[in-house]
């Protein structure tokens, strides 16, 4: 593991620690967005290294994995896009 990855790992650990403490106080009506967001994190984690690596090996399972991650990522972004339109200052009647 490179030094950069170790530093990044530490930063992510710190962010997770701070973030999870906050997450424990999320209001029930926002659970939907947290679930969608965590789906995005999983999709992101998968699509970055694994799908591409499997694709290089020529396996169709890599394509399937990447497609599943893609559907999850697209859906998560669209669900989270509801937030600014719902609570933004420029909301229309």
């Amino acid at each position, binding site marked *: 593991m490179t030094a950069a990855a170790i530093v990044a790992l530490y930063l992510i650990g710190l962010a997770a620690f701070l973030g999870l403490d906050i997450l424990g106080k999320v209001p029930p009506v926002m659970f939907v967005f947290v679930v969608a967001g965590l789906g995005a994190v999983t999709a992101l984690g998968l699509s970055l290294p694994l799908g591409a690596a499997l694709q290089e090996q020529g396996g169709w399972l890599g394509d399937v994995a990447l497609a*599943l991650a893609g559907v999850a990522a697209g859906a998560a972004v669209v669900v989270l896009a509801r937030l600014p339109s719902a609570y933004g200052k420029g909301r229309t009647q």
Partner: protein
Amino acid sequence: MNPQLGNTIAPILACGALITVLFGVTAVTHLRTSKRTFGLVLLGFIFAAFATVFENAGNLPVRAVLIFGSAAALGAVVARGVPVSARLGQVAWIAGLAAAGVAVSSWSAVAASEGFVRIAALASAVLGLAAAALSLFRLTDERDTPKTNATIAAALIMAGLCTLVAGVWSDRALLLVAGGVVALAGLALGRAMANAAGTSFATLLFGGAQQADAFGYKNVRQSDPEGAAMILAASQNVLIVPGYGLARAQGQHGVKELVERLEKTGAQVRVVVHPAAGIVPGHMNALLDEAGIPHSKIMASQDAASAIVGADVVVVGANDVVNSDAAAGEGALAGLDALNLSAAHSVWIIKRSLRTGQANVRNNLFESPRATLVLGDAKKVLQALVAELKNSH
């Protein structure tokens, strides 16, 4: 591009992507910060795209990008109808699909590996499939019961664990961290869900059928003023239904502030008065008059049927006049001509407890899929609601 430079920058960008998305997710905790969530998640995906470019030394893996892009477009189309106030079951499949993706990746490694890697890949595949199955299992549930929510939190924990184990067998730090974060976040969310239901996460998951509370109700959804503010701030049409509890708490000025604040956010707000609300006929009108709420914003309950359709209704200290059985012409209060809130978009009930009203009749509205209870003194809850709405704009 120098491959060594790419190999150094790519993990940093990838970690940046994860951190940004994680901060975006945690921003939904408050109304005022929730607007940033979408931007942060989008930024995370842009970082991820650059990380992919750097990892491939400047050459875009065209096939992978095409597959991921087309699938993302499909996911966007499928999810476009999910509303702000969606049920948890309507979005759990997103995390489930991502977990299924990890499971498929892991399965492909089972045959090609041996020893510890093979066992880890198999464990990851099984966990991923279990997470996907659990999240889809609750897809058709009609409402977010605490049990449903706990199952979905468990699915998230499994999705996280499967990603974490995939990170172990593939020796990818990013997957390891993403999995750890999702598993811990699932746990934190499960605990938050259990807190909202007034029990522990383990009891919710393994405690069998939910017991009725001290007042005989099951599956009552509870929230706080902040949660109510998040839905009301996005509403176009708000109705406020006052009752005796408002008079008792002397919260009429809070109603006026709420009306003014919601109008500033762009909603049409009206106060619906039932003639039987309060101690004597006209009690509510006198109270609203005292607070200086204009008569033009007050509506008689018999004229409210069309206004209720699709509205977000705030019931403040009223009980019998919004009894759902009575509204359907059934039960001991059948002749009361109670307000029928079944066509409302959401119903927020501000009450001290689930105790019956003056008629001593059970109110099934509390168990309605649309209803959310905000327990507390009407005046204090209204003040907290107004303060949260003020902070958000």
